[in-house]
């Protein structure tokens, strides 16, 4: 068992998949000669050549669409979209084409491809480079959207995404690339559509995904030291959404806080809160709370950016408020 970074887990898994399947190839901006904006693809051009590691012009719609077309003929493209912000230029190809090809042609064709892209703020990159807009994709039937939060998940979900016959948007997060974790050598692929219970507990359920799932785990550990038993659910898959696991947990704990890096209004937390209302209303001892980003174009200035994004402190505070509301005794 090795302790490696999230970045390394992605790199190693990509390399392995390329070695085991001729049809897997990488396509995107600056992934070859430049070795990737975030260096996930470092060394792969040298090892696999231009056919398998294809640098593209700055033409998101053109190369994402080309990957869809190639996937229709049975190749397994792994597209790197430099950041999720630029995926908007390829929205038509992702939403109107990749996601629809299987359904609208009556199951005769499909687009088995992985769209890897980092999202998230906190790096002082300003409003257009710091967004969490995975919701746009999680809304669309026909797409699958996964969001690994640990190096082990990154590996297991990337394997699952590459084995899948549908287009998968694979959400990474800039803040996670350097995080470390244990990654077993012979990890089986994850199951897309299953959430993970990363901490078990009985007092409160905290639900998060991607960066906020790791923050939730941190907060649960802090609370544990004070004798508060928090259960943490990492969604892992935003579509399909594993409502059963989160509802089951809330039925047990009686209250929930949702931690999300995206905006509150219409956000992923809204869907989760609704799901809890659908499946665990009678079990709730307090309203479901949501800790989400402030609803502003993310500012550059550090104190403002920090104020806008959810953190361990803000999540911790929200959990305590909920526990106070249910009269939890420490």
């Amino acid at each position: 068992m090795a302790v490696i970074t999230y970045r390394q887990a992605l790199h190693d898994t990509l390399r392995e998949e390329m070695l085991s399947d001729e049809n897997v190839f990488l396509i995107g901006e600056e992934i070859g000669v430049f070795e990737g904006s975030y260096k996930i693809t470092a060394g792969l051009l040298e090892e696999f050549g231009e056919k398998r590691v294809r640098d593209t012009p700055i033409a998101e719609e053109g190369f994402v669409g080309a990957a869809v077309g190639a996937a229709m003929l049975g190749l397994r493209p792994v597209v790197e979209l430099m950041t999720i912000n630029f995926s908007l230029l390829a929205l038509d190809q992702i939403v109107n084409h990749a996601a629809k090809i299987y359904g609208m042609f009556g199951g005769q064709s499909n687009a088995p491809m992985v769209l890897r892209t980092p999202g998230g703020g906190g790096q002082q990159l300003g409003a257009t480079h710091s967004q969490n807009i995975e919701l746009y994709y999680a809304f669309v039937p026909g797409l699958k959207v996964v969001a690994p939060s640990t190096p082990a998940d990154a590996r297991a979900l990337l394997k699952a995404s590459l084995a899948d016959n549908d287009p998968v948007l694979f959400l990474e997060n800039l803040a996670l690339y350097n995080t470390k974790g244990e990654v077993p050598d012979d990890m089986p692929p994850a199951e897309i559509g299953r959430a993970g219970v990363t901490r078990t507990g009985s007092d409160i359920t905290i639900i998060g995904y991607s960066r906020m799932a790791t923050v939730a785990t941190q907060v649960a550990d802090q609370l544990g030291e004070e004798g508060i038993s928090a259960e943490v659910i990492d969604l892992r898959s935003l579509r399909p959404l594993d409502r059963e696991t989160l509802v089951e947990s809330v039925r047990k704990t009686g209250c929930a806080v949702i931690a999300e890096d995206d905006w509150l209004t219409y956000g992923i937390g809204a869907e989760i809160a609704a799901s809890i209302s659908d499946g665990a209303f009678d079990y709730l001892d307090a309203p479901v709370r949501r800790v989400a980003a402030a609803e502003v174009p993310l500012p550059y200035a550090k104190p403002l950016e920090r104020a806008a994004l959810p953190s361990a402190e803000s999540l911790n505070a929200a959990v305590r408020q909920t526990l106070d509301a249910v009269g939890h005794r420490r």
Partner: protein
Amino acid sequence: MAETATRSKPAGSGSKGRRGGTRSGGSRSQQSQGKTAPQAESPETLRDYFRQMSLIRRFEERAAQGYTQAKVGGYCHLNLGEEATVVGLMSALRRSDYLFTNYREHGYAIAKGIEPGKVMAELYGRTTGTSKGLGGSMHMFDTEVGLLGGYGIVGGQVPLATGAALAIDYRGGDEVVMCQMGDGTTNIGAFHESMNIAALWNLPVVFVVINNYLGMGTTVEMSSAESELYKRAVAYRMHGERVDGNDVVAVREAAGRLVEHARKTGEPAMLEAVSHRMKGHSVVDPAKYRNSEDAEAAREADPVAAFREQLVSANVLDEDGAAEIERAVQADVDAAVAFADDSPHPDPATLFDYTYATPVANDSRRLPADPVF
């Protein structure tokens, strides 16, 4: 006669009539001169072109009728007036070559080799249709004949076609991809991104622009700064060519040449076929924006009638022979309609069958009134 991007004269002789409803530009009128001699191909081939063109004409008339009877729903864009282009292009492809089209695709589906009954059944939304009734008029598909789909987003098919050519190149196959689109499509970003990528990577794709000079109600002069569209190829160091789309043999010749070149060298190319749309944009469009001069020109250019006359005067076909083909075609279309009419509608129980190719845990199968839990 074909014009090529490398040999072209400067654009627009005099007034360009940006807002005009008429077809301007000297080169347009040149297209009607000098139809390719029918002798260039065997009499059987020419008779078969006529049969296919007549079949598509009759099929489209029946599709329009089906629409007014509410048997065909949604949008319904017809190939009326573009039959020579459709048949000329499709005859240049092998069965194993791939085709991507826009939403004006019934004729292409038939000419690529799909049974007219399957095409009509798709219009009728039946399980026997080209996409099991899930696609409709704009989304036909058939792996068997290499039709990789009709697409309803203007230009959406262009990156896909480029990607299919990438897959061919990746595997070292000798198939070619043809990507059909209208004149209005050449102003979409995806068109330019894809032309550039195809040229950069040397992909075997032939981009075919059907210039019927209208995108809905917008003329090519209103929408394209360079309305001689084949010239756009120059910007991508690609071979571009313009051909008279009313001349099936000329289209066949030009398309065949470009397709075979792409097959041999992997080089992409662009072909502009200048054609006419006889009716409105779709069945429900009365085309009031069209001036009478232009509507008259479209009627006069009727490629099916013109080709019939040409074949008869060249003794490739006599009146009886032509009438016999027309009767057979009529019978084919009647049979297609009967097949569609007799085919089952999809069972609502199959609603969730085609959302995901790899089934997943927790895939929602909720119907509108169902509770979530």
